[in-house]
């Protein structure tokens, strides 16, 4: 095994018996189970993790957690490559492969770091100001250049091979964060019997306790932690979810979370998801997300080796890694002193303690003396030195005197910001708390309480106390009896004194506010000078707080400097609002199973398998897959197929699935009255055993849907709707009944799924049906005339329905059987029709035949047309009221020259027509003011042997025989067409009644 030079000989929550090898930038390293990628690399002495976004400056680790702005890597390779992954939260696994980002050709030598030479120009707003002119250069030159230079990692270019899940879970109390506050809350709520979920984004529970050397009840905190975790595991209604980030808070106690089920292995085990998106429904929630330490803005603060002081303790105590051997600690509060102690105990030498406060308490002075560190009180670090790793720092003391100190680690501490992001997801504004110099949660969303550091109560004692109290309260609020409260355990002494330093001015290099976006203190000043003073403007102008870390370590410093610039207090400048997600979430975890063909459900007709056996080509219509046409070997193209299908139907018999049409069973003594009110035409006169075509309008007078409705009994109707509008019509009818006319005696239910239905069309259709319908039913022309509808049987007693209706204009029937018999019906019809050459046809053939007959479908009744436009004005009854009646009479809708439906044929019959073409008078320019209407449907008619079209034309019906141009600039330009009747084929309708 390779030697890990910065690994301590003992200690840490890593499993030294489980060595893991991994690769970073092509080089092999070893780490241990329990490491993060960051801690393992640090153990191996790696300091340089990436290059910065804009200036390509070398960057190392700032943190040990989710706030990391610098150490972003591409994790894994090939299809599983994942850009912008924070090395500080990547759990190490065997054979992990990671690559640094944003450098070329290598991390150590990066060509674009020459950007640094141009740095004085690359200030905030640089792109806006520089690449304004000439405008045409933007797309071709500037943008590609900028995109190459700036930016983060590369997404995988191929489909993600892993499966993602999405799941729902309910609880009484959700605890977010499993540090001392969260664990105390979970156990307090859990003991009462409440259903508790406790989530933590880490793979190990314990929060800051894992990183600190603390005592609880006089014993190491690890003992307390082990006991409380054991108790939680023993409570059957408590669910512990490690590796789970709660990223969003939504309405009504709904929380979004992502569980990294298999991110800690190279490839998920078979059948297991990579990640799982959770929607958590919680009656109460306790936010115990802790706090994030704040860096200090000073010149050179981005050099690899400058690290948050709490992160230093995490690497030392949790991971057994020494981030440096010769350290300087730069602190604005008591936090830095804990780092001095822990570093020293781990064997590092602390060369100096730079405390920005001038008053240092005696205990601290003693400690400095004991560890042999120089103490600089009232002092700051004003510069750092070294190339790609820190070699020394310059300290400036209160008198302005400078000292240069050699070191390979600078730990910085500037107090903590509560991780309050979730509290502002419902518009809650954080409020400034002067005593702790931090923003704390403001108005809380209903059901949420905040415990410990997340509420700005930073001590361990407060965390334990808050957690226990809030956990118990939450359980009581949702109806559980409070469990007996254990006394809150005692903790070792701690202090949290602080006098934050918002920035150190200096003249040796850039002082970064936002490390991820390369925003400096000078950029904030520039924004202030140029008037972008609102915090929201500052963010957008400088990009401060954007990208993957969303300003977790930079927002406060940015707005503190802005406050200073505009002479306001921080509480007056306010803060930007946090929105979900708290940390980046893979889209896959939100989509779950629903991607590719599973994006949404597909509906298959009960005859689908039969169509597939027949070689159908399918097309999506709404959720349905419908047979479009049935090609046969040797047919050159779709047109040849459709022509065959149409000619065979018109000359013999064709067969087409129509199961997808909506079917609504309507019963009740007021059923006929109801139909009167929703359709434009009359229904009371419809005899039992008859079908009728009906049109319904929306309230605004435009056509909503059409179809046939049959009367099966005195108080029993069966309505059909178009496939696309089935659900909408059902909803409309339910609304009409429940809201407008609840007094009607009426029962409705969709039976669309119950019936398989087939159209049998053509002069031989009756003969075919005669061989399928049970012999006892007379279906002769006399007994079963046009528009007859009846309940019959097939196959020796199977209940079925027969309708003599026609969309093709031929003698035609629709036969319906219970869906389970749909497949059998198609086979039976094919067998019975074999002597007559029965031919399956699909939607396209159906479309040709309906255009030949001038029947409107969705392209004509497109939501913008009235019954009158469609040539159905005379269907509108004047003897009754119906929905849309009044509004259909609006002036604009009854204007004489309003475009209405007519047919079109090309003057030169060799020309093809295109739907979408607009009608312009011959010799006139193709301009909007000359527009007289548009083509809605076209088809090649194999019967007429030329293209035909339907469309809306001003004064259409009065212009039969006129010629006009159909203009389609994007396809075949202008085609001269003749206006004709929309009924191209069998205008007398004799075939229908045959």
């Amino acid at each position: 095994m390779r030697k890990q030079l910065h690994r301590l000989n003992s200690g840490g929550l890593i499993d030294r018996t489980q060595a893991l090898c991994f690769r970073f930038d092509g080089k092999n390293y070893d780490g241990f189970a329990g490491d993060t990628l960051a801690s393992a690399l640090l153990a191996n002495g790696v300091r340089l993790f990436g290059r910065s976004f804009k200036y390509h400056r070398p960057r190392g680790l700032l943190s040990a957690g989710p706030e990391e702005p610098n150490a972003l890597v591409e994790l894994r390779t090939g299809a599983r490559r994942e850009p912008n992954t924070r090395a500080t939260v990547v759990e190490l696994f065997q054979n992990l492969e990671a690559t640094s980002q944003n450098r070329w050709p290598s991390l150590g030598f990066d060509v674009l770091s020459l950007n640094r030479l141009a740095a004085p120009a690359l200030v905030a707003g640089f792109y806006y100001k520089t690449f304004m002119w000439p405008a045409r250069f933007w797309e071709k030159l500037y943008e590609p250049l900028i995109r190459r230079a700036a930016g983060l990692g590369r997404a995988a270019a191929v489909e993600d091979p892993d499966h993602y899940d999405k799941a729902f879970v309910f609880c009484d109390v959700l605890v977010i964060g499993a540090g001392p506050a969260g664990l105390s809350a979970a156990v307090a709520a859990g003991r009462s019997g409440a259903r508790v979920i406790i989530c933590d984004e880490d793979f190990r529970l314990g929060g800051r306790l894992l990183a600190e050397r603390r005592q609880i009840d006089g014993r190491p905190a690890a003992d307390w932690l082990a006991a409380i975790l054991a108790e939680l595991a023993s409570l059957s209604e408590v669910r512990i979810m490690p590796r789970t980030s709660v990223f969003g808070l939504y309405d009504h106690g709904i929380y979004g979370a992502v569980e990294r089920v298999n991110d800690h292995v190279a490839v998920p085990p078979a059948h297991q998801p990579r990640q799982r998106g959770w929607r958590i429904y919680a009656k109460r929630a306790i936010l115990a997300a802790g706090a994030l330490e704040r860096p200090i803005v000073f010149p050179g603060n981005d050099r690899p080796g400058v690290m948050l002081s709490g992160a230093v303790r995490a690497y030392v105590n949790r991971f057994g890694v020494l981030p440096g051997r010769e350290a300087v600690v730069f602190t604005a509060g008591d936090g830095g002193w804990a780092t001095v102690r822990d570093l020293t105990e781990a064997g590092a030498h602390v060369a100096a303690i730079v405390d920005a406060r001038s008053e240092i308490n005696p205990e601290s002075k003693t400690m400095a003396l004991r560890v042999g560190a120089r103490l600089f009180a009232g002092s700051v670090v004003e510069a750092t030195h070294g190339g790609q790793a820190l070699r020394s720092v310059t300290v400036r003391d209160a008198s302005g005197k400078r000292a240069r100190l050699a070191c390979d680690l600078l730990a910085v501490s500037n107090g903590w910001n509560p991780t309050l992001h979730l509290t502002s997801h419902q518009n809650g504004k954080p409020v400034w708390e002067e005593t702790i110099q931090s923003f704390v949660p403001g108005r809380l969303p209903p059901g949420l309480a905040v415990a410990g550091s997340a509420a700005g109560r930073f001590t361990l004692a407060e965390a334990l106390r808050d957690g226990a109290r809030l956990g118990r309260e939450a359980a009581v609020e949702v109806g559980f009896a409070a469990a007996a409260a254990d006394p809150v355990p005692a903790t070792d002494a701690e202090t949290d004194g602080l006098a934050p330093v918002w920035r150190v001015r200096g003249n040796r290099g850039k002082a970064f506010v936002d490390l991820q976006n390369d925003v400096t203190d000078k950029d904030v000043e520039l924004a202030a000078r140029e008037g972008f003073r609102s915090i929201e403007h500052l963010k957008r102008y400088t990009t401060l707080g954007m990208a993957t870390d969303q300003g977790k370590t930079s927002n406060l410093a940015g707005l503190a400097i802005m406050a200073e610039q505009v002479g306001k207090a921080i509480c007056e400048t306010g803060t930007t609002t946090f929105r979900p997600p708290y940390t980046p979430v893979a889209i896959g975890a939100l989509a779950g199973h629903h991607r590719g063909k599973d994006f949404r459900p597909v509906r298959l007709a009960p005859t689908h398998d039969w169509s597939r056996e027949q070689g159908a080509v399918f097309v999506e219509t709404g959720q349905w897959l419908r047979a479009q046409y049935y090609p046969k070997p040797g047919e050159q193209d779709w047109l040849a197929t459709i022509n065959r299908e149409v000619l065979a139907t018109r000359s013999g018999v064709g067969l087409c699935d129509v199961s997808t049409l909506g079917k609504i069973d309507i019963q009740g003594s007021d059923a006929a009255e109801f139909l009167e009110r929703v359709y434009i035409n009359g229904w009371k006169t419809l005899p039992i055993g008859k079908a009728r075509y009906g049109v319904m309008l929306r309230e605004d007078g435009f056509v909503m849907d059409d179809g046939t409705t049959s009367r099966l009994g005195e108080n029993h109707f069966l309505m059909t709707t178009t496939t696309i509008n089935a659900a909408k019509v059902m909803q409309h009818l339910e609304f009409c009944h429940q809201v407008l006319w609840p007094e009607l005696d009426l029962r409705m239910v969709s039976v669309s799924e119950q019936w398989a239905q087939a159209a049998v069309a053509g002069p031989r259709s009756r003969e075919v049906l005669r061989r399928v319908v049970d012999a006892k039913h007379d279906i002769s022309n006399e007994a079963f005339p046009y528009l007859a509808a009846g309940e019959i049987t097939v196959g020796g007693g199977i209940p079925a329905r027969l309708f003599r209706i026609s969309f093709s204009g031929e003698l035609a029937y629709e036969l319906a059987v219970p869906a389970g018999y749909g497949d059998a019906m198609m086979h039976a019809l094919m067998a019975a029709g074999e002597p007559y050459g029965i031919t399956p046809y699909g939607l396209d053939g159906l479309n040709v035949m309906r255009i030949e007959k001038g029947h409107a479908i969705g392209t004509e009744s497109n939501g913008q047309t009235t019954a009158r436009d469609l040539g159905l004005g005379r269907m509108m009854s004047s003897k009754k009221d119906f929905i849309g009646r009044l509004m259909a009479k609006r002036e604009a809708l009854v204007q004489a020259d309003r475009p209405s439906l007519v047919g079109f044929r090309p003057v030169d019959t060799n020309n093809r027509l295109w739907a979408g073409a607009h009608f312009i008078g011959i010799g006139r320019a193709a301009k909007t003011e000359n527009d007289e209407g548009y083509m809605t449907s076209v088809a090649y008619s194999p019967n007429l042997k030329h293209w035909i079209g339907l469309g809306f034309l001003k004064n259409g019906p009065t212009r039969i025989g006129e010629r006009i141009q159909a203009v389609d600039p994007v396809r075949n330009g202008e085609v001269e067409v003749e206006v004709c009747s929309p009924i191209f084929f069998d205008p007398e309708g004799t075939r229908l009644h045959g």
Partner: protein
Amino acid sequence: MAEQAKSIWRPRSAWAGIVEAGQIGVDGKPGVTALTLDDMGFATLIVPPGSPDLASATKRMIGLDLPKKAFVSLSSTHGVAWAGANHWLLFARQQAGFVDLLQSFSDHAAVSDQSHARAALTVSGPRVREVLAKGAMVDLHSSVFPVGATALTSFAHVHVQFWRTDDGPDGPIFEILVPRSMAGSFWSWFAASAAEFNCRIDRD
């Protein structure tokens, strides 16, 4: 011809071509078991608001109480599930005789046969709740969704009605009804969701 006709007119299961008996997922003891139900009869019963006699008719004809809220009443042969305001789903374990039963109900409610409109299956096993949690925006904890509870909701964007029957030796048992046309999409989701727990599949 008559013979041929007879052989053609066989009903086809809503799960045909979609679900095959066997095992999906990892080896070992199944965490979930799915059984397709291919012979059930279903019908919607709707009555006008305040209509009194469906409850007594239900009691008389199948011996079951008409549930007033989101519950299902079950016997070994029949069941009736609440399905909305004034709206129930009547079902039988076998289609034989179901048409006659519907006939006798038609005096008491608007009856619409839906026997072929639904694809039905039973799911059970110690991990079944974890599978359903990937689809159901419904709390399936026993304190909220006890034996006999039903819900109309959607799994994976597919409308479903499901209920919980008496527990079996392996824990809770749920029966799920899916619109026939969406059985394939439902199964795609279910199979992918159940695979990690190892799922045994039986055909009725």
